């Protein structure tokens, strides 16, 4: 079992004819993901990455192929338009890989999406994978292995590092969700933790956070009051200086808030096991197996 993506996923790739879109569509197909369509304005009627039909609009793609999930690879200037189009066409799960979308655009989009049935993951995220059934993202599929550890993370390559260590120890994953590094985004730690808590295929959860904001503290509240499954966490940026944005738009300690220390403290008092480095997560997870 898994959350959000599985064998029922019928994936639409928005921007499938671009270099990133084409490459990753190919990778996702190879992994076994059911890629049913592409959408690129002006390219309708063509075929992409082998035998995937391309449509001019998302509505047309949904009407023809029953796509229920979309992944977005279009440039930042057009990404908001793409995700609103997906929501308007009734796509249930929208995964936005694109980075550098202005934060106020995301504030407006979220305000709109909250009034629809669509769920957004990202932007500026690696996507998500349920090992063995569906990969909707840009992560290297082969480092994953099916199992029952759920992973939720704000970062990309750091997550791969953790998964690599888990797989090396023979510990498989139910679903790994990269929620992205932007200040305003779709699903947050709290939302994904709630899904893992409900998922019969997930027995423990790894949370990978970083400096900036207070989402880890919100997660800690939920973990201490509602969650029964064990949680392990790692927070990146313990050595980050205040006031400097560490790559991700969301990774900044501002006004003394959002430090790694306060996040670690909140999680620790919620009973979360804290790893000192990413590889230690695998050792801690092994204790729960």
């Amino acid at each position: 079992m898994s959350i959000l993506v599985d064998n029922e996923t019928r994936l639409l790739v928005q921007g499938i004819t671009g270099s990133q879109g084409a490459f990753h569509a190919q990778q996702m197909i190879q992994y076994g993901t059911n890629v049913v369509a592409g959408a690129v304005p002006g390219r309708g009627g063509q075929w992409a990455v082998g035998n995937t039909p391309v449509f001019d609009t998302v509505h047309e793609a949904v009407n023809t192929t029953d796509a229920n999930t979309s992944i977005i690879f279009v440039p930042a200037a057009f990404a908001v338009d793409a995700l609103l189009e997906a929501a308007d066409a009734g796509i249930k799960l929208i995964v936005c890989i694109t980075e550098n979308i202005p934060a106020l655009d995301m504030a407006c989009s979220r305000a709109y999406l909250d009034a629809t049935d669509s769920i957004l993951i990202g932007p500026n995220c690696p996507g998500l994978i349920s090992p063995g059934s569906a990969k909707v993202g840009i992560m290297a599929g082969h480092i994953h292995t099916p199992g029952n550890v759920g992973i939720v993370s704000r970062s990309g390559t750091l997550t791969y590092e953790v998964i690599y260590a888990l797989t090396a120890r023979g510990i498989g994953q139910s679903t790994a969700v990269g929620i992205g590094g932007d200040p305003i985004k779709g699903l947050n730690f709290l939302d994904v933790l709630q899904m893992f808590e409900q998922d019969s295929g997930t027995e423990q959860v790894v949370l990978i956070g970083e400096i900036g904001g207070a989402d880890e503290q919100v997660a800690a509240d939920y973990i201490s009051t509602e969650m029964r499954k064990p949680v392990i966490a790692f927070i990146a940026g313990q050595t980050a200086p205040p006031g400097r944005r560490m790559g991700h738009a969301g990774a900044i300690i501002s006004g003394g808030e959002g430090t790694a220390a306060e996040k670690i403290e909140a999680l620790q008092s919620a009973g979360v096991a804290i790893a000192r480095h990413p590889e230690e997560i695998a050792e801690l997870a092994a204790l729960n197996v």
Partner: protein
Amino acid sequence: MKLHEYQSKRIFAEYGVPIPDGDIATTPAEARAIAERIGKPVVIKSQVLVGGRGKAGGIKLAQTPAEAEEVAGGILGMDIKGLTVQKVLVDEAADIRAEIYLGAVLDRGARKVAIMASSEGGVEIEEVAAQTPEKIVTVHVHPLLGMQGYQARQLAFGIGLSKEYIPAFTRIAQSLYRAFFESDASLAEINPLIVNGDNQLEAVDGKILLDDSALPRQTELASMRDPDEDSATETEAREAGLSYIDLDGEIGCMVNGAGLAMATMDIIKLYGGNPANFLDIGGGAGADKVLAALRIILRDTRVKAVLINIFGGITRCDEVANGIVEAINSLNVKVPIVVRMVGVNEEEGRQILADSKLPSANRLSEAVQMAVAAAKGESK
């Protein structure tokens, strides 16, 4: 990206916020000319992108044009927290009857813009928040609706503003929100917003931070960038498409991905070293970017060892390895370089690096310990 006080205030003024009469000077003579034109006592304010200018002696009053020239001469060229003052703002000195704080900030938790006001203006809002949080009133603006009049009035009445100022305050608060929204700011502050001797509200100091992701569409604002905001190296890195931040340690790091770069820094610290920098080469970096990154890291004379940590995905290990070899051949490398490379094309990458005999490890913690030992002059 940060804007200077004078840039921020000019933007506020375009949206109808009253600001003092003033102009920018780069020489004492220009400061004198501005003071002559104003014809009243002036305040000379250094324009540097750090806080605490007043305490550092970078803000001073001048009663006459001659004094303005002299004071500006003292402030221009001054060093404030490592930045040299290149410009001063010469503003008509304000007759301050009351000081208010008014600020707009992106509240990521609420996913809305928060507008905050306080009767305790003129001091850092963080200080007010820590000591007398009850003196801060906040409203959240729905991004699809914009700031409503009632919200501005909630702030005004909430901070106990007397009613003759309410209409002006409401206009200013709504102007600030529009300036924030239309500039793609992440912070816009008027501190203080004063009641002056003529019983008018006036913004005597201002600050704007812009959302870097929006700079491609905010071309006019982007052109206001002060190159002094970042170190020369940080500017060079930005132009090369690298995300780089200078730190104080002795171990240079080159990593792909911001989260992994931060984690790598943390592990260096965990094993007794100190990172010399944060450096994210981003996703899909080719040999050129790797070479540029190593050139930047190796130029830092404090660097005693370099740790390269690559988790291949979109970034291919063979590309990175080519960049490393190119760097070793073209740069005068005097410090040990430890390479840790896993993921896509790791075998090809290792082949390319085999001749260079660089110390390497598969496990991250092992690589970090090797780099820490190497920086201390020990081999491990």
